[in-house]
């Protein structure tokens, strides 16, 4: 294998992981935009999605497409429930109280999974059976193709939804000014619920793609992609939709290149190093707007 092929393959690996990070990062960013909080339980929604898919396919013996829809619905409902139960009562509380609640929610979900499923990893056979292809000597695995197609389609659809539909502009209005949005007749609570539902549905899809890659399910499986995607969201500019996409993909590529050509052990350090450098140069993240906080 020559250097070109090797670099291309690492690039594709990075794109694949990165686009999964991007899906998760979108959830962080959308929720931050509308609720002005970091939903630290977001990574654990991925984990719940993984178990939901597993249960859907085994215990409920649903056909695959139905099991996927089941997974997405479970996560969307979970997202709405988390917001209603944990965050909504704290709308006017200090951001520290909200942060602690979010961390608590993350532990709660992990503990529940531990009680129900135990810590023993559940092996999971990838649901993607597509054969890979070879272009110019570069192997492109089926899972990479599917991941890229699915994530691209979702990001395009989401961008259109946010920018072109009435519900999308209502979402942007609520992010900017809840009071003024209410005066327009926009139901702010419902819009926030919808945002959590969409973010969690994206996490469900990310979770499915993620376990197809790692082929094992544990109660803490969401923690690592969760934190990486959070970094990606900050990198891209938290609150920015295109920022989350760019941040996720960039992070995936940096990580994969570092692992391949520098050192596996140092890869995470390099990723965080990139974050620090970018934030030093542009504190609002790559595509973020630095807004003067309203007083």
């Amino acid at each position, binding site marked *: 294998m020559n250097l070109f092929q090797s670099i291309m393959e690492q690039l594709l690996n990075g794109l694949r992981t990165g686009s999964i990070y991007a899906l998760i990062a979108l959830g962080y960013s959308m929720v931050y935009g509308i609720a002005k909080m970091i939903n630290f339980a977001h990574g654990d929604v991925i984990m719940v999605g993984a178990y939901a898919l597993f249960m859907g396919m085994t215990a409920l013996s649903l056909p695959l497409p139905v099991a996927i829809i089941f997974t997405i619905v479970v996560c969307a409902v979970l997202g709405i429930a988390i917001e209603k139960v944990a965050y909504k009562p704290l709308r006017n509380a200090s951001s520290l109280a909200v942060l602690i609640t979010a961390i608590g929610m993350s532990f709660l979900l992990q503990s529940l999974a531990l009680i129900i499923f135990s810590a023993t990893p559940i092996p999971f056979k990838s649901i993607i059976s597509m054969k890979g292809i070879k272009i110019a000597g570069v192997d492109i695995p089926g899972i990479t193709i599917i991941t890229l197609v699915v994530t691209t389609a979702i990001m395009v659809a989401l961008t259109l939804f946010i920018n072109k539909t*009435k519900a999308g*502009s*209502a979402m*942007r*209005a609520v992010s*900017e*000014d809840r*009071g*003024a*949005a*209410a*005066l*327009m*007749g*926009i*139901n*702010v609570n419902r819009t926030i619920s919808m945002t959590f539902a969409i973010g969690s549905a994206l996490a469900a899809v990310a979770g499915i793609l993620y376990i197809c890659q790692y082929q094992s399910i544990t109660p803490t499986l969401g923690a690592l992609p969760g934190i990486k995607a959070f970094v990606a969201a900050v990198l891209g500019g938290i609150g920015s939709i295109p920022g989350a996409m760019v941040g996720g993909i960039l992070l995936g590529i940096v990580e994969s290149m570092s692992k391949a050509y520098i050192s596996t052990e140092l890869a995470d350090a390099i990723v965080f190093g990139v974050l620090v450098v970018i934030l030093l140069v542009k504190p609002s993240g790559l595509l973020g*707007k630095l807004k003067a906080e309203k007083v």
Partner: protein
Amino acid sequence: MAMLSVKDLQVYYGMIQAIKGLSFEVNEGEVVALIGANGAGKTTILHTVTGLIPSKEGKIEFQGKDITKAPGHKIVTYGMAHVPEGRRVFANLSVYENLKLGAYTRNDKKEIEDTLKMIYQRFPRLEERKNQMAGTLSGGEQQMLAMGRALMSQPKIILMDEPSMGLSPIFVEEIFKIIQDVAASGTTVLLVEQNAKKALSIANRAYVLETGKIVLEGDANVLMNDESVKKAYLGE
């Protein structure tokens, strides 16, 4: 019967009482001005009427319907629009998107287009800048956008909170002319202003507010010649 009636309203911010039991009415077709110094409670009253903050005591009725406890997003569906203090346009949305959000609760696609055309006629500057982000407009243009956005809901009554604040004299003239136009076309107006002189000059009736209480009310032209009003609010 009054179109909008507020009775014995009391509003608190935490422990602090901002509105200390006041009543007022707006009749259909009127322009009513609410004047008072900084911190008198004018904005608080409008926010309470349109459901953005809750009242502690009192009753708010609109066209005979009790709206005291109605949530903010329902108010516009009853035919009440609010041009908030500081304009509060959606800065990162285009002028066009802002206007479309004004018609958020309407479903009559074709009529919405007609209203939009009317708004563009009334505010030609907005049409010229329809694809521009609202945050890039000048203060006066943002005020026009905030008014246009409120009018997009085809309100029966429009509540305006200091529409002339921070504007150059030319824009102030223009804004007041537009308010008169809006009133002449049949929309009832409740106008909050610190520019008491201008407000009284276009209003039918007025209420004078001091630290959460109404201290004076009456016909605008009577108040305009009232000695205490002259001294305190008209700078004469």
